[in-house]
């Protein structure tokens, strides 16, 4: 899953980027409103985490301009402004969620996951596709009743495919959701992750869950075994 974090505090920005990346999110960061608006306009993100008091262009203006451009990316406001009217204004201007600083990292993760699920119209945090179960809240996967230990990137890739079950997801799309804007990861890195994931899910029948559509991308069928 790919996030954009627009936060002017360098310390908070780097800490959150580090924590979220470890959780398997691809995190792009921006230190002011202008840069954040540009990144949000130029790229597709699952969620934008937006501070309100930003240099150059304030957060509410960034939000207004994004919505004005027709961008419907989920936006989570992360702000020190804690008044009810601040939250109401943020939500009425088009934000999907509002979290007041200081916050729990776990709560931030949970809210991000909820927003990601909403992006794919999945309300239940337990995703079932055949014998595959993905617990999005705990970021845990079981296949045929057996826990499958995955790296954050493997988990994220599988979550994307399960959330979009029945839909072929291109390698490019997967790469963009797994890696940051300025990542130097090679383009075949997605194939490497899929290979590793298949081995962990079912070493005897690697194509059983994640299927390849040659020249297009990968797919988890809605009625996977």
């Amino acid at each position, binding site marked *: 899953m790919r996030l954009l974090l627009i936060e*002017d505090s360098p*310390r908070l920005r780097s800490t959150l980027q580090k924590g979220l990346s470890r959780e398997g999110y691809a995190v792009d960061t921006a230190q002011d409103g202008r840069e954040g608006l540009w990144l949000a306009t130029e790229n597709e993100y699952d969620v934008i985490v937006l501070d309100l*008091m930003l*240099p150059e262009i304030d957060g509410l203006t960034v939000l207004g301009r994004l919505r004005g451009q027709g961008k419907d990316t989920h936006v989570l406001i992360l702000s*020190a402004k804690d008044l009810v009217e601040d939250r109401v204004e943020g939500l009425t201007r088009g934000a999907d969620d509002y979290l007041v*600083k200081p916050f729990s990292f776990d709560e931030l993760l949970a809210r991000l996951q909820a927003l990601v699920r909403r992006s794919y119209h999945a309300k239940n945090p337990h995703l079932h596709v055949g014998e595959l179960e993905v617990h999005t809240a705990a970021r845990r996967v079981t296949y045929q009743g057996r826990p499958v230990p995955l790296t954050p990137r493997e988990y994220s890739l599988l979550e994307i495919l399960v959330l979009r079950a029945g839909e072929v997801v291109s390698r490019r799309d997967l790469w963009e959701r797994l890696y940051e804007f300025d990542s130097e990861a090679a383009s075949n890195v997605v194939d490497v992750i899929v290979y590793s994931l298949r081995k962990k899910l079912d070493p005897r029948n690697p194509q059983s869950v994640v299927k390849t559509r040659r020249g297009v991308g990968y797919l988890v069928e809605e009625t996977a075994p």
Partner: protein
Amino acid sequence: MRAPRSLRGRLMAGLLIGMGVLLAAGGGILDRVLSTRLRRDYDTALLARTKSLATLTEQGSGRIWLQYTDEVMPDFGLRDHPDYFELWLANGSAIERSRSLGKRDLPRTPQSHASLDRPRLRDLTLPDGRAGRSAEITFHPLSEKEEDELRDTEQSSGRSDSPGDLQVTLVVAHGREELDAFLRTIHLTLSLVALGLLLGTAALVKLVVGAGLRPLDDLGRRLETMGAESLGETLEVAGAPAELVPMIHHLNGLLARLQESFTRERAFSANLAHELRTPLAELRAVTEVALRWPEDSSSWPASFEEIRTIGLQMETLVVNLLALARYDARQSRIHTSEVSLRELAASAWNAVSAAAREKGMAFRLDVPEGLLLVTDREKLALILSNLFANAVAYGSPGSAVRCLGEMTPSGFALSVCNATADLDPEDLPRIFDRFWRKDSARSDGQHAGLGLALVAALCETLDLGKTARLQGDLFEITLTGPAAHSSSLH
């Protein structure tokens, strides 16, 4: 608790009491005039009647008689509510009385001096029990001869008593029930008219006072609906009565000042929240992310360093806030001593000289060697270090910070001046506000916007004046103090 005095009530009470007094006085005077006039007319008629009876009294041959018959004057006859008269000789023997009187007597004054010109009038109870009024005159009846002469010469006065004249006293009495009834009617009518006028006035006053005070009520209602969120609105002056216009202007001024205070208060709260919440959020994020992957011990030193930096930053914030609170509460004691301003400024600059060098900023100290101040050295040093730190932090890179001190006719002046590209003239009124920063995003975690607020509080503590001005891109803060603070060796 005493109820608040109502303007409407006071106006109505005042107007009604005043109107009541005026009506009572007017009614009383009118009643008095009418009564007097009616009584006078009554007395005039009574006297005319008495005089006509007197003219009918004649004397001759040592005898007096009254040419009177009931037919000519039936009022003195036997009838209901009759009139009365009685005629006495000087010796008190009654020689004639009206038929209505029968054998009774009317009261008369012994040795009366009443005359035709000066009759005696008095109230009395008539023989039939009615209230009445009598006229009493003492005169010499005319003889037949005199009467003829009088007719011949047409003389009506200058009559002189001749020897042998007889003097008589005539009392004529008339019932006054009609007069009294009429006077009572007048009293009642006047009282009712006054009461009616008073009631009418009360209704009118209520109406007029209500209409007159309606703009005040409207103003009150308008103010009642105003809250913290509507302080930016102004009260409408157009259409307001002239008396209320100055008050509305004052209220609008007050609302504007309140709005400004609220805005500042809100900004203060928001800024304080930001200054406290952001490092707390950083602290929590750093610790929670570190604790989430405890196996990654290699990242611990960096996390600890982050936590320490955040702690120090918060400590500075808290120390500054506590200092401000102490200065506000005047809890800080002042220890005065003689201070060389030049030495103190040079010492304060040392603390920021490294940061200034990094920005390529120079320092120009234009303070005379001999300029001495009698003040609190520590607090003045804090003022100077905050002013210099502010100048270095927000001054244009490569520019110079100038510190100028001089004696003035009223004491001393100390200015710190630096070039800056960030400020606008409209920022100046807020430059000493707590947490105010030009950068509304407050991105720089190094500054909280309390430096100049501390300068302001310290100036207040040391009774120093302070002004901030902007000339082009030159920002200057000037401190001034009275002569008692300063002395010069030169």
